[in-house]
């Protein structure tokens, strides 16, 4: 099915590139508009570049620039929601959901991509996903977009079963890698972990093995 407009809702600069860049690139190549609602600036991240070029006080500005560059590479519209890294789960969930609902009613997307609450490892992922799903739940059932929720916890296959959507994004991997590399302060630290897991000298090959498929569960609203 041709989507009308896709909205991606994640909390951190780089979640879009690691988690959904291939899916996003595929939609953009079909001419489908994509908007990224990015919850925070990732200002509490511990990766400072390797070797470090950022510090805790400069990180927000650096990651904001990286986010803008990655969204330009992915050719998506970007809206920054202005929450602070690591604090999303302590915000009023209803308030976050209301903010998201307002934006969704304005954009009227056919598809929303977010994290699967409680199966997304980082507390900000869980909180952002829960607020996004709450926002869609509060919409008129007739005008709700489809929601794809992304689970990344180690137990998600056992607990949730096989994902409904598995996008093989290896055909788009060069561009996905370019988007990831826009996040200079984060990329090498995270990619390095994949390299250890896959025991290869080629960072891109290791990344492709880890990130070559993007999987999502279709969220079912029970009413």
């Amino acid at each position, binding site marked *: 099915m041709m989507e009308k407009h896709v909205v991606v809702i994640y909390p951190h600069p780089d979640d879009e590139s690691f988690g959904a860049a291939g899916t996003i690139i595929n939609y953009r190549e079909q001419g489908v508009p994509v908007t990224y609602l990015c919850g925070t600036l990732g200002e509490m991240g*511990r990766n*400072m*570049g*390797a070797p*470090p070029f950022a*510090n805790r*006080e400069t990180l*927000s500005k650096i990651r904001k620039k990286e986010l803008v560059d990655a969204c330009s590479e992915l050719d998506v519209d970007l809206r920054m929601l202005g929450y*602070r890294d690591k604090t999303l789960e302590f915000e009023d969930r209803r308030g976050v959901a209301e903010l998201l609902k307002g934006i969704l009613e304005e954009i009227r997307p056919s598809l929303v991509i977010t994290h699967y609450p409680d199966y997304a490892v980082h507390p900000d992922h869980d909180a952002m996903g829960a607020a996004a799903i709450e926002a869609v739940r509060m919409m008129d059932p007739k005008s709700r977009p489809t929601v794809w929720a992304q689970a990344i916890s180690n137990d998600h296959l056992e607990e949730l079963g096989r994902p409904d959507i598995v996008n093989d994004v290896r055909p788009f991997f060069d561009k996905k890698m370019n988007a990831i590399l826009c996040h200079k302060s984060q990329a090498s630290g995270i990619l*390095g972990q994949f390299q250890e897991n896959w025991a290869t000298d080629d960072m891109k090959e290791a990344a492709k093995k880890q990130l070559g498929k993007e999987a999502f569960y279709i969220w079912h609203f029970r009413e």
Partner: protein
Amino acid sequence: MTPIESEKVQQLLEMLIGKDVYIHLETTNGAYASHLNEKAYNVGAYIRNAKVNFSQAKIIGNGNSFRVGLKIDWGWIYAEGLTDWTLHNESQLLLAGHDREGRLMVALHISETPLGE
């Protein structure tokens, strides 16, 4: 940031004694520690823009890794594992400890004005 020059840092700490200052104190091993290694624990804490006034301040270490202790009215502020420093905006003293991969493990910032959002 650059490797800590303890004499310079000590001088800057002493200039802040007796002044109302804003502190950022943090330690973290990341939100993915137990995701990447099931035997690991996720541990972290931070306090940002706590306003304090200290009467004594020292940096002590072995040349690579340093501890800082600040004596405040009713207690202490303490950080261990500090490796690097910089002066941010020419006046905010930033101290941090990084691991081999350059990831932040601990941070102590001291500023006469509130630290940025």
